[in-house]
């Protein structure tokens, strides 16, 4: 019986060892992995034909279970080139550029299909593309224009949320500039090629790239992405208004809105430029080279006087806030409790910002309302800071008197002790 049990144990051990060995060898040989003859061959192909498994594994489509066959057709289970790339097996070969949007749309315009991967993904890209300058030129036979793969990349296409994606907000401007900054490539279209260079100096680029604010505008924010087109000259303010709503409301009601429209001037762009939008400053109201008003208005006219008045008031409020800041800071560093005034300073700063927004109404009375509101708060805070310093001095005088009284008490006590101990 004991011999039987011993043999049985040996048998079980041998079987376990054999199974482990088989699994180890099988895993080394790649047994169990799906066969992909396309990648196996194309990994070794030169130049543009090279697609390695590593590159393709980065692609969102590969990650969602799609293969080469999904776009190119063919039979990726066969290592016989004649079978793998046979028309019979539906092989399409290199996709013609004209056909790319349609091919992508075969899935991306199908809401039912797309929903299973990403329910929030839009399915109107092809329709949008047809309305774009790119789409219209492509339809007219121009194959130089951008199609899906030019912007989104191919075989290693990443979702826009991936910072390495060519269409991640941070990278969009660079992606557009690949064509739009290439003077030779763009020559036949007769449009400028300095957009990227200008955008790189703008406040929007600074917000997006330097400060990492992904909500800041890039090319597609103003021009659209799949339906990319330049905004109409008279409708530029509508584009800017999507973010700068209050400025746009003020501008729409202003005298400038009608005057610019009549003269065919592009609204906001007249003063702020388009791609090279710099941080606006009060100097834009000045008469130096940074000033914009005097480009159209004559010195001494009604508008020039209004400009000077607004600039003067803005400067006054700016100085009043700085003075109050200094007074509050000084009181704070002296240990005085002025946190309410410090908070209220934000309200004064808000009033200044509001006044700068109200400038777009081009009405001195409206701007002055905001200025006066800010001046009142700044004046109150300045007083709080100054009062706190006066209070600090009173405290020190009080302390001095108390310390003298204590010193007298100590001397008196010491003398009394000396007297009773004599």
């Amino acid at each position, binding site marked *: 019986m004991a011999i039987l049990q011993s043999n049985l144990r040996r048998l079980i051990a041998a079987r376990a060892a054999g199974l482990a060995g088989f699994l180890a060898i099988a895993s080394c040989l790649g047994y169990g992995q799906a066969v992909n003859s396309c990648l196996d061959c194309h990994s070794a192909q030169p130049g543009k034909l090279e697609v390695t498994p590593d590159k393709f594994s980065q692609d969102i489509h590969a990650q969602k279970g799609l293969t080469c066959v999904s776009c190119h057709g063919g039979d990726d289970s066969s290592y016989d080139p004649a079978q793998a790339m046979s028309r019979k097996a539906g092989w399409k070969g290199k996709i013609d550029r004209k056909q790319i949007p349609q091919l992508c749309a075969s899935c991306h315009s199908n809401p039912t299909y797309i929903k299973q991967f990403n329910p929030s993904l839009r399915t109107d890209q092809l329709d949008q593309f047809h309305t774009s300058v790119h789409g219209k030129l492509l339809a007219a036979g121009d194959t130089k224009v951008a199609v899906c793969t030019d912007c989104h990349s191919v075989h290693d296409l990443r979702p826009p949320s991936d910072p390495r994606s060519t269409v991640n907000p941070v990278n969009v401007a660079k992606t557009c500039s690949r064509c739009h900054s290439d003077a030779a490539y763009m020559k036949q279209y007769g449009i400028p090629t300095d957009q990227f260079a200008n955008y790189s100096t703008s406040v929007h680029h600074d917000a997006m790239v330097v400060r990492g604010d992904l909500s800041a505008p890039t090319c597609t924010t103003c021009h659209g992405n799949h339906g990319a087109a330049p905004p109409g000259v008279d409708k530029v303010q509508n584009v800017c208004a999507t973010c700068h709503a209050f400025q746009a409301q003020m501008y729409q009601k202003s005298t400038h809105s009608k005057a610019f429209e009549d003269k065919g001037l592009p609204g906001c762009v007249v003063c702020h430029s388009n791609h090279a939008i710099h941080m606006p400053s009060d100097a834009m109201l000045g008469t130096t080279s940074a000033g914009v008003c005097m480009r159209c208005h004559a010195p001494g006219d009604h508008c020039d006087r209004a400009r000077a008045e607004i600039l003067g008031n803005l400067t006054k409020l700016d100085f009043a806030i700085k003075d109050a800041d200094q007074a509050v800071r000084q009181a704070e560093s002296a240990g005085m*409790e002025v946190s309410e005034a410090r908070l209220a300073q934000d309200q004064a700063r808000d009033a200044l910002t509001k006044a700068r927004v109200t400038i777009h109404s081009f009405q001195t009375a409206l701007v002055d309302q905001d200025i006066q509101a800010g001046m009142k708060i700044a004046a109150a805070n300045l007083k709080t800071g100054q009062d706190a310093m006066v209070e600090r001095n009173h*405290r020190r005088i009080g*302390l001095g008197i108390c*310390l003298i009284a*204590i010193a007298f008490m100590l001397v008196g006590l010491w003398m009394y002790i000396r007297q009773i101990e004599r």
Partner: protein
Amino acid sequence: MLASLIRWLDERLDLEGLIAPFKHKTVPTHRFSYWYFFGGVTLFLFIIQVLTGILLLLYYRPGANEAYESVQYIMTRVQFGWLIRSIHAWAANLMIFTAFVHMFSVLFLKAYRKPRELTWVSGMLLLFLVMGFGFSGYLLPWNTLAFFATKVGTEMAGQVPIVGKGIMIFLRGGPEVTGATLTRFFGFHVAVLPGLVTVLIAMHLFFVQRQGMSVPPKIEAEWIENPSARREMKFFPNFMLRELMAWYVAMGVLGALAALFPWNLSTKADPFVSAPAGIKPEWYFLFMFQTLKLIPSKVWFVDGEVLGILGCSVAGLLWMLLPFFESDKAGRGKALITGLSIFALVYVVGMSVYGYLAK
């Protein structure tokens, strides 16, 4: 007028009989006598705390939505509110400082020896309670630093094996530091702790009065060798007047600190923001905090933080029971305790400075 009032009271209450023991009571006079004053100064600061605390209670409102605003109101709108709050905060810190000085002076002058073991134990309990006052009072203004320091502090209590979680929930009034924690700490700060401390102070003073002031063994030996060198002074009025001078000096220091460096209020606590970088507890917890920081996350198989907290608790308990480890006879035990005392002082000061400077 005053004399006739005292005479009137004396006829009815026998005041003479009441103060007679103090008139006969004497205090030994020697080159270390000034260390005696620190106990009295600590008591004086406690009295200041009680008085300013009562004044603050007139305006303070416990509650996550009101506490900060009420302290802000005290600091900016209430007449001399800034002074009362600054004195309360500075006196709290000075009280803990003088309590530590008093503890170490008693230790080095060997005043804890038989028959004064109970005086030492009650004093140590008072020191722990005073630190509890500091911990509970620190949260009451409901500012950012206090909020996160309390979060860290109560989390540490939660690391104690078995009972830790329960202690943490009891202290916080729930799983997180919220308004419930604030009202709970307020309760501890103005009701529970003052009650306990008052009873213990009464016991501590009773022990001191019954046993008199201890004379350091070295001085005692000198006096035995040379009896003519023995010096004493009357407790009342001679010692009391000197103590009064010490209280005046403490009052001057306290007033100067409060007037020149009013206690900061900082910003209101926001439980939804992340903790500010490099957050540290109050200076009197720094030596323990730094010790916990230096212990590796795992020591053998025990969690480092648990080990640190248990170590600090055991060390505190043994410290409280220190007099019971010293026998009457001179020997290695006494030398060991002296060595331990020097080590403890160097360790507490060193770790506190290290903790203050560390990032």
